[in-house]
């Protein structure tokens, strides 16, 4: 399966600031997704990152708050903007389309907003 490098692995941020999370894959993949996992909860899909076009957001998530870029087939970023303590979560990227079937997940970015 694909190898995903997600950075940073964790961060503590001040409210009102923004953080950009990077997802780098070791090979070209078809699809890239971003998820949020709040403490003790399951994963919630934020958006599908589309190469060369605007991301497709799920209900409850908007581009102004979570801008996403995907400039090529191996890289994507998720920005958490104007952060508040409620944004404290783990953010994960996931990819598909690499060789065999399977959704591969990054190890996540643990974000704490103070």
């Amino acid at each position, binding site marked *: 399966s694909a190898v995903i490098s997600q950075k940073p692995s964790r961060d503590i941020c001040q409210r009102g600031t923004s953080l950009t999370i990077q997802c780098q894959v070791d090979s070209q993949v078809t*699809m890239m997704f971003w998820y949020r996992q709040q403490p003790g909860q*399951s994963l*919630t*899909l934020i958006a599908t990152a589309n190469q060369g076009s605007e991301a497709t957001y799920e209900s409850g998530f908007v581009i102004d708050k979570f801008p996403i870029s995907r400039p090529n087939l191996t890289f994507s970023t998720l920005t958490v903007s104007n952060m508040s303590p409620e944004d404290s979560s783990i953010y994960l990227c*996931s990819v598909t389309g690499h060789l065999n079937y399977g*959704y591969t*997940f990054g190890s996540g970015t643990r974000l704490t907003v103070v």
Partner: protein
Amino acid sequence: LAKTTQPISMDSYEGQEVNITCSHNNIATNDYITWYQQFPSQGPRFIIQGYKTKVTNEVASLFIPADRKSSTLSLPRVSLSDTAVYYCLVGDKAGNTPLVFGKGTRLSVIA
């Protein structure tokens, strides 16, 4: 809306076989059933996938009845290191659509 329903939690002693059942009544014809395992501070990890009948790999077995409206993940002789959250998901094999996670089953293995 998650497509699957599973027990919220299960407890087991070391060395026992654990079976986790998942309901997916509205599974589509082209959907596959996949199970993931998640440890704290890690992303979900693929365990096993199947379409029908039985699939076995080095870590688990997956049983799928003919109507495919449910599936059972079987973990033989669990150890403490199998303590994790297990997610059952359905989706197309090509991976063109994102996975929609349900609440998962939190398995606690006790010595």
